[in-house]
């Protein structure tokens, strides 16, 4: 369990993290969301013991990160922002160094390194110097390093930044498979990643925790929650649509000529829309119900907050 109480970090120019408190239980995958400069990375740096907070405490599975730093750090796997690795080492040497620091020797060391390499598909570049790797491969080395010792707590700062779509998928699968009985914290600017991966979304802005709820609940805040979009062959009777119970407004999408019906908060309009279409005998090419648009929620929550 991670317990964070009144965590605060002030830099000379500004407050980066402002009175953050939360607890995370094993099995949870938490996504940190927030604009650039919101304090996500600074929070992670304090969770991992790199930065000392100005105020507040962090406890990792019962170990105070400030006082029992080493015990806590043994439980943590951490991918820092930008995935820094020793560039003058080869991938294999670097991972072997990390394995030794994690206390593995001999055969077990070899196995751990080989498994970490396989997990993020680094086989092709094992002999290559990290300096000469592409951005995505560097990130993967950082991930391999973080997961090598099956950490109880996995903290990943923008883990999928710079990965190709296949690798993004692979890494998400990896994180999901690791998440059982463990604590995973990721930060990301890819909002779909939060709904695809996380059980809990935390929106941070100006160092403050704005929202802490499930990704679904976060999506439900969107004006597009339960909205229905119709792409029809012929012009539709807008009055009939507007008059349906629960419909709040109509929106035209000039790009493809489709119409989006927004639902009133808490209402479900899809069945009524569906019935109307059948009753009118409209030729409908596409019909789509939305859970909500995260980017729109994100913008409305953090509008004007971008640092």
């Amino acid at each position, binding site marked *: 369990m991670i317990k964070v109480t009144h965590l605060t970090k002030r830099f000379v120019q500004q407050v980066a993290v402002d009175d953050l408190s939360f607890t995370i239980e094993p099995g949870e995958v938490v996504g940190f969301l927030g604009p650039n400069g919101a304090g996500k990375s600074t929070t992670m740096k304090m969770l991992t013991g790199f930065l000392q907070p100005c105020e507040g405490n962090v406890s990792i599975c019962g170990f105070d990160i400030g006082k029992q730093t080493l015990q806590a750090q043994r439980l943590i796997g951490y991918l820092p922002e930008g995935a820094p690795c020793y560039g003058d*080492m080869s991938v294999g040497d670097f991972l072997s160094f990390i394995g030794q620091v994690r206390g593995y020797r001999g055969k077990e060391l070899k196995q751990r390194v080989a498994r970490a390499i396989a997990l993020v598909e680094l086989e092709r570049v094992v002999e290559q110097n990290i300096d000469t790797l592409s951005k995505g491969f560097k990130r993967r080395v950082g991930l391999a390093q973080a997961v090598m010792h099956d950490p109880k707590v996995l903290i990943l700062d923008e883990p999928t930044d710079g990965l190709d779509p296949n690798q993004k998928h692979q890494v998400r699968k990896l994180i999901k498979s690791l998440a059982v009985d463990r604590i995973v914290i990721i930060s990301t600017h890819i909002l779909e990643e939060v709904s695809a991966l996380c059980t809990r979304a935390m929106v941070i802005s100006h160092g403050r925790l704005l929202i802490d709820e499930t990704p679904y609940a976060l999506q439900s805040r969107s004006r597009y929650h339960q909205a229905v979009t119709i792409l029809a062959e012929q012009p539709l009777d807008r009055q009939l649509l507007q008059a349906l119970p629960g419909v709040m407004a109509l929106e035209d999408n000039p790009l493809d000529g489709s119409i989006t019906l927004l639902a009133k908060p808490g209402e479900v309009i899809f069945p009524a829309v569906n019935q109307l279409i059948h009753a009118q005998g409209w030729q409908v090419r596409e019909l789509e119900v939305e859970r909500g648009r995260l980017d729109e929620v994100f913008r409305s929550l953090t509008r004007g907050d971008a640092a």
Partner: protein
Amino acid sequence: MKQLPIIFKREFTSFFATPLAYVFLLIFLVLSSVFTFYLSGFYESGQANLNPFFNFHPWLYLFLVPALAMRMWAEERKSGTIELLMTLPITRFESVVGKFLAAWVFAGIALLLTFPMVLTVNYLGDPDNGAILTGYLGSWLLVGAYLSVGSCMSALAKNQVIAFILTVSLCFLFVVSGFSLVLDVFNGWAPQWLLDVVASFSFLTRFQAISKGVIDVRDLLYFLSFITAWLMATAVVIDLKKAD
């Protein structure tokens, strides 16, 4: 303590990952031979000893050792790997001492590679091999002192060039603080004890004493506590500056 050898090994091998190690060895060996054999009148002096060789070391090290030390921490901070290092289960002691020892042992190897000098003087005459041995010891301690200053400066400055310049300047002060030229500045107005303190800080007097074959425990203690103090300062500076 368990992690210290691991850090040591990584740091030590990283010297050889870049041309730095080879350039350092080459310049060190070439310069020490040139100075010993040509510039100091080694053959003319008619004495079989390595004094000219050792006398020249404080000045040679003044530029070579800071170059060896400058990347120690500056590089970690610049590339961000310091965040990785400080979030692995490694104590500050282990990382500071591990890095320092790697550089110190590397410089020690460079020093050992000058053993043909010892063979030469033994071929030419009948030197005091005990004094030569203490000369090597003194020289190595001197490198350690320079390196410890360099370690702290490297932690202080993110820029390696600045770390280099700071280290050269500080080491220069410690070398010349025993010179009458420097002491004259204090003479007349400063109390005698201050004069003694300044003089006692000098690398040069200590080093010369050891390399003449006289091992005084106080001289050894001086170098060891000097190194310890600067390494402790390194640890403090890292904690203050690591996030910048």
